[in-house]
């Protein structure tokens, strides 16, 4: 029987925790940004679009370093968070979740935005003529119709978060039990001679988790599609 060692359990748990929070926490903002980009024209739209997509093309280490400068205990934002809410992000799993969220954000926004752009605006107009205000229309018509896009975005972002390494290690370092996720644990093991077998085990775990996520997304999106098609 394949049983996980304490280190593997801890890394797996941290990976799921960090990725889960990264996705759940950034989803409302992701939907908001996707909606802005898909539906609204405003000055500086290309700039916002560029900023959101930046983490996709920047080396993750750059993003991690930027986060450290901004959100570190003595960074401009980090200091405020610490003074006002007693919240410390640097070198904690919460910081890891933020790093993952930033890196995965463009993937999420992209998927939701594409889906939003394909929603028939006529359906929203129809809802409006039936007495449904703009906000209610968004929740009763638009959101259910973009559900396939949201699912895709969530799975992509979750998968990207699971594999996050560069920004995480730069921002929150490698702290056992706090920020040592699967990829970081794996990297640490590869640096130690004679730990090839343990490293290989982590590889297998990563593959299984990633594959399970993909499978779950496939099943879910089929269900959603079936619901939309009747």
């Amino acid at each position: 029987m394949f049983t996980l060692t304490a280190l593997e359990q801890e890394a797996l748990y941290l990976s799921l925790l960090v990725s889960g929070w990264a996705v759940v926490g950034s989803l409302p903002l992701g939907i908001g940004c996707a909606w802005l980009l898909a539906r609204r024209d405003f000055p500086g739209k290309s700039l916002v679009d560029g900023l959101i997509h930046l983490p996709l093309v920047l080396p993750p280490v750059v993003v991690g370093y930027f986060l450290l400068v901004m959100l570190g205990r003595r960074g401009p934002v980090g200091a405020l968070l610490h003074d006002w809410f007693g919240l410390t992000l640097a070198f904690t799993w919460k910081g890891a979740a933020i790093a993952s969220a930033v890196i995965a954000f463009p993937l999420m926004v992209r998927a939701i935005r594409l889906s939003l752009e394909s929603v028939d605006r006529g359906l929203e107009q129809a809802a409006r003529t039936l007495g449904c205000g703009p906000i209610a229309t968004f929740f009763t018509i638009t959101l259910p119709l973009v559900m396939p896009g949201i699912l895709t975005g969530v799975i992509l972002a979750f998968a990207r978060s699971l594999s996050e390494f560069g920004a995480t290690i730069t921002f929150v370092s490698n702290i056992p039990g706090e920020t040592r996720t699967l990829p970081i644990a794996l990297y640490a093991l590869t640096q130690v001679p004679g730990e090839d077998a343990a490293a290989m085990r982590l590889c297998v775990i990563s593959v299984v988790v990633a594959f399970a996520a993909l499978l779950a997304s496939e099943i879910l999106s089929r269900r959603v599609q079936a619901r939309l098609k009747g």
Partner: protein
Amino acid sequence: MLDLSVIRQQGSFRVNVTLQAGAGITALFGPSGSGKTSVINMVAGLARPDQGRIVVDGRVLFDAAEGVDIPPERRRLGYVFQDGRLFPHLSVRANLTFGRDRLPPSDRKVDFDAVVEVLGIDHLLDRRPALLSGGEKQRVAIGRALLASPRILLMDEPLAALDSNRKAEVLPFIGALSRRFGIPILYVSHSMDEVLSLADTLVLMDQGRAAAIGPTEELLSRPELRPLTGRWEAGSVIRAQVESHDPRTGMTRLRFGGGILAMARNHLAVGAQVRLRIQASDIAIALDHPGRVSVRNILPAHVLSVTQRDTSLVDVMLDCGGTPLWAQISGWAQADLGLKPGMQVHAMVKALTIARGEVAETGGGEEDCRRRPALDPCGRPFALGASSVDLRRE
């Protein structure tokens, strides 16, 4: 009911329309791009006029001068779109109740079961829209708009996306609805068949403006409006009531203002209000009663006007018991008869020239409902029998 005067510039196209619509069905008729849909989008609040005022049932929905612009969700209008626009993620039942559920219970004036029954969509309630046929979708869309208890129902070519069989399946319901639920309908169409069978009032749209407004029969019978009414043979449209069917002779007798018209037997219910067209070239004129002749309809009339269209064709407008009839005779015949306004003549129409496809059952507004109470004993729609009649022109 509806009182509107709007101006809207759309690129290089300008919509400038002033019109009033009362009870019953008002049709906006015109070619594509004449501004019909823009007008109802402005009424619905989906497009904003640059100037003007829109009032429905005494409630100001839009007034540019006063800065009033009520958002679409608070206008209480039903809108049936050309493409149905059913919500794909909701069942037919949830689609139907979507608008109704957003009304306070005291404002729900249209009964769910009644709508489902009139539209014949009982068996579809638990399906998803994707599994419906085009005709079924449109019926559900009509029901959905109706259940929102609208002050006025806006219909944007609701039958345009349907083939002729599906059209015949939906068409009779629309007339029945307006009468049954007492909701006025503003109906956009570029199909004269639909206008002929549905509209009480006709608005002829041309290049962004309302070129003529009036009772359907009157506008369709006016020679000078022919460029707007389209590729439509010259003729008169008259209102009549089915008087009797005679199985022995195979004829149906229709009563109208000028007397009785016989035509080949049709399947319309006795008492039904119909509207029919008689082509101008199918009417012959005799100065004296012709005596024994094969022509079955010989109607006394007097000449209103005589217009020489070209050397070979003369338009003669007749008054037949208050109903205008449009006749066309040859210039040669006119030279012989010497018709002048005021002359007493006999208009002759062969029974067989009144084509079955040119007779359409109509609602005719509330007035007709009162006149025919026997057909509506328990509040049932009485026009449903018409679904078995082919209303299309051949």
